[in-house]
């Protein structure tokens, strides 16, 4: 269910996103996740560059929920994590649009960087 307080602004107006926000959205693109699963996926993808602590993760999730980019899908136990019940989150269609807009923006930046030979060169 979409957040009723979600602004109906274009996805492009939400970018640029912070690194944590974009990584959380990326983690949710593949499907529903609980907090620990999001943190683990972001950690594996970024290594030590971005370690999401509980405050950063849930602060970002709260903002994403309020913005209508993410929605809650209820609580259930994760079979891989014992019987403890966990709250699951999923990306909304609007959130997907925002993530796509951010990826497009970053792609444009990377293309400029490559054109200026900042990246993509073989080491001498």
């Amino acid at each position: 269910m979409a957040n009723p307080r979600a602004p109906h602004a274009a996805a492009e107006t939400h970018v640029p996103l912070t690194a944590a926000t974009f990584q959380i959205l990326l983690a949710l693109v593949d499907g529903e996740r609980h907090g620990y699963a999001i943190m683990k996926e972001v950690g594996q993808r970024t290594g030590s560059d971005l370690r999401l602590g509980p405050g950063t993760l849930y602060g970002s999730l709260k903002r994403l929920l309020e913005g209508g980019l993410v929605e809650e899908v209820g609580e259930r136990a994760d079979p891989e994590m014992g019987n403890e019940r966990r709250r699951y989150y999923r990306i909304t269609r609007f959130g997907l649009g925002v993530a796509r807009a951010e990826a497009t923006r970053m792609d444009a930046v990377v293309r400029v960087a490559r054109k200026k030979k900042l990246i993509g060169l073989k080491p001498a």
Partner: protein
Amino acid sequence: MSAAERAYRLLLRAYPAGFRAAYGREMVQLFNDRRRDASAASARFWAAMLADVARSAPRMRLEQWRAQWSDNFHVEERTMKTMAILAILIGTLEVVSSAAEAWVGGLVLHGGYSLAAGTVAAAAGGLLVASAIAMLRGAKGAVSLAQGSAIACIAVFALVAALHPIFSILSTMLGIGFPIALLLYLRVTQGRGPSGQIATQG
């Protein structure tokens, strides 16, 4: 509950109560998950946890404060509009009733006094309407104009009631009562400016 979890629950007090109520349980759950992963690296783990709280808690406090301020502002904005609409209605009523009661009814009995009182009361009512329109438009100096017109209304209707009452009880009560309420409202809300933009990104 372990000592580490107790210590983390204490750290959670740095966050706003509403945020703790909504996410506190999950944060403790995630803390325990991460503690299990961290195993031996205890000092590094705690440094990361402290840094996370130090980074995110002030931001959450600031966001809560901004949201609260914005909510208060919107309530005030609605009340201001209600007061302005009431001022337009009551001001118009004062203009019409003053004209009707003083000029039409009173002219025969009280002559020039009725005409003067009716004119001044209608002018005060008109001023109240003008100031209310200025309030609705958010014009500069609208509050001062509203205060001035409210004082003028009170003075005119109180003076007429004291010297030689020619207006009906309803007109006099509205002419004195509403401007007093308007003055009190303006006094309470004075000095509070509009809210700033609330960041929704990131």
